[in-house]
């Protein structure tokens, strides 16, 4: 699936929720379900420290595509982390760099990406793009 196909799926899923409580209950659910972040990756170099919550991000290049794994100590942040990983993992650096992640605004989660929230999410997206730039350079 392309990044935009995944984003459109996410938008459709969120379209089913009538009120904010259901939406956040879903975020909590996918936050709780996010797994696969290995303890050996829980290093300071992978830590994105916000004032409010912390995010860990690990990335590796497999067959020309980037595999992202991430985690957070706050469940709502972790739910959003799970959506970002779902949209961008297993994609090429070029596709990742060309995408603007429009789903975040469409599903009403943009407030979490305000720098004043200081929850690590803005820095996480920046870091995901930096990995894409670095892997792209490495691939030549």
């Amino acid at each position, binding site marked *: 699936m392309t990044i935009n196909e995944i984003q459109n799926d996410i938008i459709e899923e969120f379209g089913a929720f009538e009120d904010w409580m259901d939406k956040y209950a879903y975020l909590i659910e996918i936050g709780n379900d996010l797994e696969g972040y290995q303890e050996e990756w829980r290093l300071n170099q992978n830590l994105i420290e916000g004032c409010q919550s912390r995010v860990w991000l690990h990335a590796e290049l497999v067959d020309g595509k980037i595999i992202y794994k991430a985690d957070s100590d*706050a469940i709502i942040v972790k739910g959003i982390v799970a959506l970002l990983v779902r949209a961008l993992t297993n994609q090429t650096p070029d596709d990742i760099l060309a995408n603007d992640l429009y789903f975040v605004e469409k599903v009403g989660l943009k407030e979490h990406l305000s720098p004043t929230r200081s929850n690590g999410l803005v820095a996480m997206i920046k870091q995901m793009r930096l990995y894409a730039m670095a892997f792209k350079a490495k691939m030549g």
Partner: protein
Amino acid sequence: MGAAIDYVESIGLENIALYEQLLLEYATEKLLTIPDLKIYGTAQHKASLISFLVGNIHPYDMGMMLDKMGIAVRTGHHCAQPLMLRYNIPGTVRASFGMYNTFDEIDRLVAGVLKVSQMFA
């Protein structure tokens, strides 16, 4: 500024302090009825604010949900990282009460915290 001082003086600092202490006592008593709620900072003559956590619910999660319910609290380490390290917690949720707050608003805070703790249970 002048108008603000006139306003505060017309009510009286002692009255304000007394009212805020009553709000604090009421909120403390009500919040402590919530299962697994722990208050951080219980000095006898502390200012009218309560720093707390419920179980292992992250303060950001609690603050975010309360915000959605129209309840304003502050969350995070409050620039007191060494103290948070000492308690081994990521931060706290902090509700502050002023002369403009009401007992009814404290009931709403308590109901909100209870609702959030159920969502994360």
